[in-house]
């Protein structure tokens, strides 16, 4: 036949193999419910409303005295920082003798819709940091903020500089005008007042939508194809399911907090211009005079480096370091690269500036 399609038989074999893998998948992968994401031993040492403070048990005898408090983002949960033993941010720090506390923002409901920056920064964060200072008998703590947790940590350090020894900002959302991501593009065109007034909290479905359009073909197609291709690789499958469980756990954001975040950071760009007000006080980035480490990723498609880097130039700290890594938003905190490059530099920087 003249119009016969010539197909490599090996392609057909690949296709049949993939189909077999898809059929085998339910027997080889755990369901999301069977996965426990809180594996590194810890105690819940403080709780307030839906918020918990986790204190991780030390893994080595020699401890650095100044405790580190990690403020994770408000989007998704903190579990990515301890997603598996080989890529765990928390476990790596514990192995360096760092005393690690981590804030779990929990899952807000409608009752939390009126909570804003003031409640988070001057309420929850301040109470937590006071608790850690008392428990560890330290005058000050080191504070690390990731993503929107970086925004909260920046505001906290500007309003309570006397309680922060070192500030580490990992992909913080700072200068909304310079942010070139899809997230920023949508945020700038959003009627946030109508959204909050009508729905109360920022619904997780809408956030899930925003994430799904960031890399629609890589994340929506290729990722799952690779999963089925590697279905017989136990380690790959376990890691995949753990990350998927983390991705699917997207809590709502309290309405008033979301309103101020979108307006003050993305739409009116008040934070970087020292015009943001929290709890009736002006947030001046010049109040940040403690040592500052800013970490950004070149391939970050959620918070572009141009959005994070201005903090390095806006503070009055004399001791400040800017690190730019060739990775992505999540790659910076949960990858082999992060373990080999980001964390050793982080630990060294922190150890040099902490009380032994």
């Amino acid at each position: 036949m003249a119009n016969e399609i010539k197909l490599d038989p090996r392609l057909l074999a690949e296709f049949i193999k993939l189909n077999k893998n898809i059929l085998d998948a339910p027997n080889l992968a755990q369901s999301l419910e069977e996965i426990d994401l809180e594996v590194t031993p810890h105690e819940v040492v403080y709780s307030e409303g839906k918020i918990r403070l986790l204190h991780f048990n030390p893994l080595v005898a020699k401890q650095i005295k100044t405790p580190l408090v990690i403020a994770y983002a408000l989007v998704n949960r903190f579990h990515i920082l301890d997603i598996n033993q080989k890529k765990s941010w928390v476990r790596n720090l514990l192995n360096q003798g760092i005393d690690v506390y981590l804030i779990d923002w929990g899952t807000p409901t409608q009752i939390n819709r009126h909570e804003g920056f003031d409640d988070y920064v001057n309420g929850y964060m301040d109470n937590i940091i006071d608790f850690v200072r008392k428990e560890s008998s330290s005058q000050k703590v080191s504070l690390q903020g990731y993503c929107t947790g970086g925004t909260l940590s920046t505001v906290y350090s500007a309003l309570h500089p006397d309680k922060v020894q070192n500030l580490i900002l990992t992909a913080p959302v700072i200068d909304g005008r310079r942010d070139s991501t899809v997230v920023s593009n949508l945020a700038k065109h959003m009627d946030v007042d109508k959204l909050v007034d009508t729905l109360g909290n920022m619904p997780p479905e809408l956030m899930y939508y925003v994430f799904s359009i960031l890399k629609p073909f890589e994340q929506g197609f290729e990722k799952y194809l690779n999963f089925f291709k590697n279905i017989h690789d136990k380690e790959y499958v376990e890691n995949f399911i753990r990350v998927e469980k983390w991705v699917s756990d997207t809590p709502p954001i309290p309405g008033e907090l979301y309103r101020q975040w979108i307006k003050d950071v993305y739409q009116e760009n008040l934070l970087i211009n020292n015009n943001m007000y929290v709890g009736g006080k002006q947030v001046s980035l010049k109040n940040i005079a403690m040592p500052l480490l800013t970490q950004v990723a070149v391939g970050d498609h959620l918070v572009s480096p141009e959005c994070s880097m201005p903090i390095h130039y806006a503070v009055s700290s004399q001791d400040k370091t800017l690190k730019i890594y060739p990775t992505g938003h999540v790659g910076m905190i949960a990858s082999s690269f992060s373990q080999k490059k980001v964390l050793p530099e982080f630990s060294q920087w922190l150890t040099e500036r902490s009380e032994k």
Partner: protein
Amino acid sequence: MSLPQDVKNSLANYKHNSLFWTDLLYLMSNRQQSLAATGPFRKFAINVKNLSTETIEMNEDMTEFNTRLSAYYKQLTDTWNEAQKEYSRKVPELPNDSEHMEASKRVWIDIYENYFTRLFDSADFAENFGKLVTSELEIAKHWNNMASTLLESANMPTKKEMDEVYKELHSLRKRVAKLEKIANKGGT
């Protein structure tokens, strides 16, 4: 992107007619309703007009929502077609064997990813998406109002009332926290 004047006129006419007849029927049947309805149903009989008003207004917002949704799908379809055209141009250059299958897939993903990222980065997309969400929120508002009418009829707290409670609770919590701080410092 607003509605054409003739569509607006016919919607206004429809709304006027519906409300006129709802009002008139309500007035005509009011006495019989009063006799027949007792307890929670009495309240429902009085509030039922709100449901038809909200339904009519929701229909108007549905028109705006559908316009925005159509524009949204048009943007996606146009982008898909453009990406497909470029991929089709590339296909003859790609070898059709298993060794190059991975590379072919990569080309496909890269082309589509680039086209769609450009779309999602554009002001046109963000503007339409923002308005699409706003029109959905308008529909949600009517839905909330209708739910409130039903809750009120059943003597149950409405969303607005619950929100007032949450607000009060939030403000009380703040006051207590402030007072606790003052007390812990031994101040006045």
